[in-house]
């Protein structure tokens, strides 16, 4: 089952802080996640037990320069992934 994806204003601010190439990759990854969130995401854990985590490295096919964490939850009607945070750490 594929899900819709939406972002809070705070998550949008996280996205806006990224370099354009990385921001575009994050949007692509959100579309990938939407197709199979159960398989791709990890169960809730620190820093918040209510949000699923989706993590990946950037760039995808070279030594990692950054690590991205996306925190999201399922909407109440379970049709949408609600993204509440996008964290990035650079080497």
């Amino acid at each position, binding site marked *: 089952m594929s899900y*819709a994806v939406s972002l809070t*204003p705070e998550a*949008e601010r996280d996205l806006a802080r990224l370099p354009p190439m990385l921001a575009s990759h994050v949007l692509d990854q*959100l579309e990938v996640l*939407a197709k199979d969130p159960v398989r791709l995401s990890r169960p809730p*854990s620190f820093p918040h*037990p209510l949000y699923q985590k989706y993590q990946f490295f950037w760039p995808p096919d070279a030594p990692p320069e950054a690590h991205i964490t996306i925190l999201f939850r399922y909407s109440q009607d379970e049709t949408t992934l609600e993204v509440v945070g996008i964290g990035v750490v650079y080497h």
Partner: protein
Amino acid sequence: MGGSTTQFLSDQLDSYTESWQRDHADALACWELEARLKIALGLFQAIRLVDQEMSQAVAEGRLSWDAVTTERLVGFYRSWEAPAGAIVRRARDLRSRGFEVEGAVEFERAALEAKGTLNISLDRLEQSARQAREGKLRPLGEIRDELRRQSDSRG
């Protein structure tokens, strides 16, 4: 959740941190670094396991998510991550001189993951969670279209 196990992990991490303070990473031979990377990666997996178990207990209502729980987990990740910069530098130095350092790539990935976990602001996350509860959300397609327009206008 397993108070004695979290205490056990805490004790191991204290010892781990003290050991790295005593022995500088830049003096280690390749085999010594490899042995320590194995220990470091094992500890990281243990932290992840404790984290997931505690989170599961919260989700099932067996544990409350309070400041003490949060601080404890922050402390685990922080203790583990503290010597990571020096370890990564030493591993890169050895690799640049032609040594194969087993576990170095896995360690770098784990260090990035730990830093990423510590890097998320809990205050901002709470604010964002409130926005989600209030329905303040924008569809991904709309955001992508806006970024495209901005990119096109910059030419």
